[in-house]
């Protein structure tokens, strides 16, 4: 049996900045994870649907548009609606007070500018468990 951590990494909403998320996706690949990359401009509905179909262990979203509170809330709400228990983490330009709000909402972790890819990898290794039957 070969257990691998599978992740969905993507961008939601009206936000065309994908340099950071591509670097993160690449770093996660190099760490030995299987990374499904969604590309730009996804709706929360699409993200949740993809995450379910792809059987991922966690969803990582990059949001640089400032709409993080609304978008994370919608993703978490849709996951709940569909009965999927997939942890969500994210990154972007997020003010400290919003980080508190996001964590309260159920976002497991946030990474802001200056975060090292090693830090993200370490967090996943420590916190994300590959699902089983």
């Amino acid at each position, binding site marked *: 049996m070969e257990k691998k951590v599978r992740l969905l990494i993507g961008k939601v909403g009206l936000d065309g900045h994908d340099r950071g998320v591509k670097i993160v996706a690449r770093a996660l690949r*190099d760490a030995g994870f*299987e*990374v499904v990359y969604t590309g730009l401009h996804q*709706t929360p509905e699409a993200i949740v*649907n993809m995450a379910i179909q792809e*059987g991922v262990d966690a969803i990582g979203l990059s949001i640089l548009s400032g709409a993080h509170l609304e978008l994370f809330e919608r993703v978490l709400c849709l996951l709940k609606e569909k009965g999927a228990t997939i942890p969500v983490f994210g990154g972007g330009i997020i003010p400290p007070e919003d980080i508190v709000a996001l964590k309260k909402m159920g976002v497991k972790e946030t990474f802001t500018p200056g975060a090292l890819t090693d830090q993200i990898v370490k967090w996943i290794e420590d916190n994300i468990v590959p*699902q*089983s*039957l």
Partner: protein
Amino acid sequence: MPKVQAILEGILKKDALTASRLLRAVDDQDPKTIEILEKIYPERKPSQVIGLTGPPGVGKSTLIDALVAKEREGGACVGVLAIDPSSPFTGGALLGDRIRMSRHASDPDVFIRSLASRGRMGGLSASLQDSLVVMQAMGYSPIFVETVGTGQDEVEVLRVSHTTLVVLAPGLGDSIQSLKAGIMEIADIYVVNKADKDSARTLQSEIEDLIGMKAYAPEDWQPRVILTSPAYDQGLKELQEAIKAHWTYLNKAGRRRLKEEQIAKQLVIGRMQDKILHLLETKLNHLLEGAWKDEILNPYTMSNKLFERFKQQVVDET
């Protein structure tokens, strides 16, 4: 085991969460899946499996995206299994095929699953055939399989699909490339994608020459060459019709049964190969460990000797 029954029911009800978990366990080669797969197998619906192979960047994912859209117009529930390579160094993978298919992401009647090759050669993943069984039991039809971007020699897709498409694009080499053995022999339909480019016609005629060199009996399927350009909605209807024509062809004169026998045999071989190879590797490593202790022995003599010994053991046991 009540859990097995629940999973089986979930699959037949097309429950996405159940399917997703099962596909994951299948991909991880969880031994618990064997019992479930065994029960699911007879529940498969007769759905056409369409394999697409071809070099990286020729537009396989984009073409699937367009074909899925065409199938959705007709109301079909469509499955897609898209394979990308795993790193030989870290085992990690970046699965990016579905970026090209994102317009179907919110459509509940399109099930797209990305698979990493996880070290399997030939352009597929070890879990591909089992994943197909799950999708067929869920009733998705047709199901598209996208191989890893292939070179010249990855022909496995032929052995798991009803209909094989070799997707090419102009500008990848001269006419000698089309004469070579390997993927240029396996297509039921050749697709010249990016047909809006100038040299597409040249490639088309090269492939047609290649087909023309072989004698086909009138009742045989003669491979077709179709020019497509999804960006301009060119050739897609024609391609869809050719795929359907091949399905009609297979459904006559018992050909589909024959094809499905081959596919089932391949599933048996695949499962056996994995098990036997694993056994063999363990055994060989064990045998070699002691033998190489003092000096490096002649590998030719060594392999001859070991093979004779192995043959003897197999003969003894049967």
